[in-house]
């Protein structure tokens, strides 16, 4: 029982990331009808927003501290971050410590801008081109974006820690009456899951309860009719693209403490996220979220020792295997609508 719970928990953080990326992909596909292979790159850019913020916060000036000596006996050079000057040492340290969560405020406007520029500058011209062309041009864009990041940040992963308050693990099991020390769970993963749940909830609430969202949903269901009502769908769809980019970016920001960001993380996630979207059903938002968590959790179950002993290698292939089976038995995915991308 506790082993199962542990696997579910382990699957949650990856599942959350899949779900968030797949949600954005589906929003873009559902609204604009575009298959966006550059969506993983947005996730990656989000992660590098966090890297950038923590770098900016630690920008320092060098002073010579006469009271301390280095091992040669010379006066020690000390780096003093500017935030210390502005907010005092104690507050400054806290700010640096909280760089990752703080990056959210930086990432949201940046990602929306990136998304809107991408849509207006490139994607717009591909609405009426075949899906293969959309895949290809966004695939090219993804390469370009990741190479730009690689140029500025290098090819190595950049560790970006969570606030120290969240770095440890805690005995999750003991809290719910299991044997102590059977379910140890890192704090940050729980934070990530909670964060993902909030974002997903917010997106759904936004689509469900605002007039903007209602128009967008109507447009997703039947673009032409809504267009005929004289509502400017395109403008809203552009904003939705920005929103989807922001969701992907935030997913990236918060993922940095779990996996140190590198330039190809976007592509790694993208391939799986596409599988997730297809499993959930092209164009279905709940399907994307459901499939994201489902596959994340399945993946973690498949990596249990007991399972691997029975079916070696299953942890490596489970997601693809499930995708193949679902695509063959339920061509529209778990919750897909009829007729989406079937020709």
């Amino acid at each position, binding site marked *: 029982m506790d082993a199962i719970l542990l696997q579910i928990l382990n699957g949650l953080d990856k599942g959350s990331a899949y779900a968030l990326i797949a949600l954005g992909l589906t929003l873009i596909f559902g609204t604009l009808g575009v*298959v966006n292979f550059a969506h993983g790159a947005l996730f990656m850019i989000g992660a590098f927003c966090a890297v950038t913020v923590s770098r900016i916060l630690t920008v320092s000036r060098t002073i010579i501290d006469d009271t301390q000596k280095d091992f040669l006996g010379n006066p020690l050079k000390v780096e003093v971050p500017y935030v210390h000057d502005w907010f005092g040492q104690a507050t400054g340290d806290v700010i640096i410590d909280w760089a990752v969560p703080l990056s959210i405020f930086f990432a949201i406007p940046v990602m929306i801008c990136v998304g809107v520029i991408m849509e207006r500058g*490139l994607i717009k*011209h591909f609405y009426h081109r075949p*899906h*293969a*062309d959309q*895949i*290809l*041009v966004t*695939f*090219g*864009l*993804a*390469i*370009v974006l990741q*190479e*730009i990041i*690689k*140029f500025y940040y290098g*090819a190595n992963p950049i560790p970006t820690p969570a606030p120290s308050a969240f770095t440890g693990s805690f005995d999750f099991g003991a809290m719910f009456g299991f044997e102590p020390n059977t379910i140890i769970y890192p704090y940050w993963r729980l934070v990530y899951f909670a964060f993902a749940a909030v974002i997903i909830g917010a997106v759904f609430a936004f689509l469900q309860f605002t007039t903007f969202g209602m128009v967008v949903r109507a447009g997703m269901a039947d673009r032409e009719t809504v267009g005929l009502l004289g509502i400017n769908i395109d403008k809203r769809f552009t904003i939705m693209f920005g929103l989807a980019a922001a969701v992907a970016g935030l997913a990236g920001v918060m993922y940095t403490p779990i996996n140190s960001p590198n330039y190809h993380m976007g*592509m790694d996630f993208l*391939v799986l996220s*596409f*599988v997730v979207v*297809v499993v959930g059903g*092209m164009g279905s938002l709940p399907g994307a979220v459901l499939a994201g968590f489902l596959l994340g959790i399945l993946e973690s179950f498949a990596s249990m020792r007991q399972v691997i002993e029975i079916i*070696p*290698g299953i942890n*490596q*292939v489970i997601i*693809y*295997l499930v*995708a*193949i089976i679902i*695509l*063959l038995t339920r*061509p529209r995915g778990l919750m897909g609508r009829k007729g989406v*991308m*079937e*020709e």
Partner: protein
Amino acid sequence: MLGLQKKDASLLLLVFALTMLAPFILNPFPEGSGWAQFNAGYPDLMQRFVIFGIFAIGFNILFGLTGYLSFGHAAFLGVGSYSAVWMFKLLSMNVIPAIALAVITSGLFALLIGFISLRRSGIYFSILTLAFAQMSFALAYSVLTPITGGETGLQLALDDPRILDSISAAAGGNIPVPSLFGIEMRDSSEWSVGSWVFTFNNGYYFAAFIMLCSFYLSIRIFRSPFGLMLRAVKSNQQRLNYTGLNTRPYTLAAFVISGMYAGLAGGLMAAMDPLAGAERMFWTASGEVVLMTILGGVGTLIGPVLGAGMIKYMENILSKINSDILHTWFAFLPDGLEDFIVTIIYPFIGKGWHLTLGLLFMMVVIFLPGGLVEGGQKIAKLFKRGKKDDDGAKAADATTPAE
């Protein structure tokens, strides 16, 4: 000639001439000159040109003709390499059985994957092929280690059985190398003319010969009734169904043929350098062949070969340029301007060649959906227009797929 129309025959001749003279064409700069680094006429790279040419030609038979975009073709390449290396280990260092087995196994593998994946079309097909390829990659990397060598890859060993070879050759101290009835693939002869050095590598000429055969076969396929049906699949599958034609076996045959081409390329890779690793099956490798085909011109005969050459050239040559070289090039400019230009160009070369590739690829998809071939035709037309306007002839040409 050879049962081809005149236009196709001259295209084949052109490719023949280019491949045979490649050691000269690709080595235009004298040894030791500042431009020598742009010489691509060394065996390793020339082999890659033709091998990836084969891969792309095969991919184009599927994607170019039927429009089915496979994102998992590298799996067949990998299977081909593994089969070839196993043949080297077990049977003989002769490349013929190795390549034969590579083509057969990859064909069977493609039959299996194609049979399942082709039940869906569009992006679903792409995802299915991607999933299968990624699965093969993951398995080759982990569970199948006894067959694939896992992370280290599959290599030859001194104590491999090599049943056929052990009869003739006495056990030597070194691992034998792949050969064609005694002609070693890695052997080259060199010819120096002044300060130029030209290298003629056995392996290259063997691979080039196979590439020419593959190219010839692909022309025949393009011009055959089968090729016509495949183009019809891309154009309007529904009409084809209601015209009494069963599209499934047509697409499956195209899939298997292109899988066999990929296996052939994989087998040749192993024949040039007898090892095989799982990374050959990774999805980026599948993405690469897509890039090659699109860049060159999808659905055209020569396009994939050009695209493969272009990408491999960039990968090997562009990536070698560094900022020092740039500085020497622009040394004639005033200092400030020199630094400025070097700073601007720098991200696009050396390790940044992928950036150039990505941008180039985007440009092609946006402005030149027909790839380099279309670009070439447009330029050619510009020149022709200067001489005379004959739209009638052009309209007549429009229907046969461009070369």
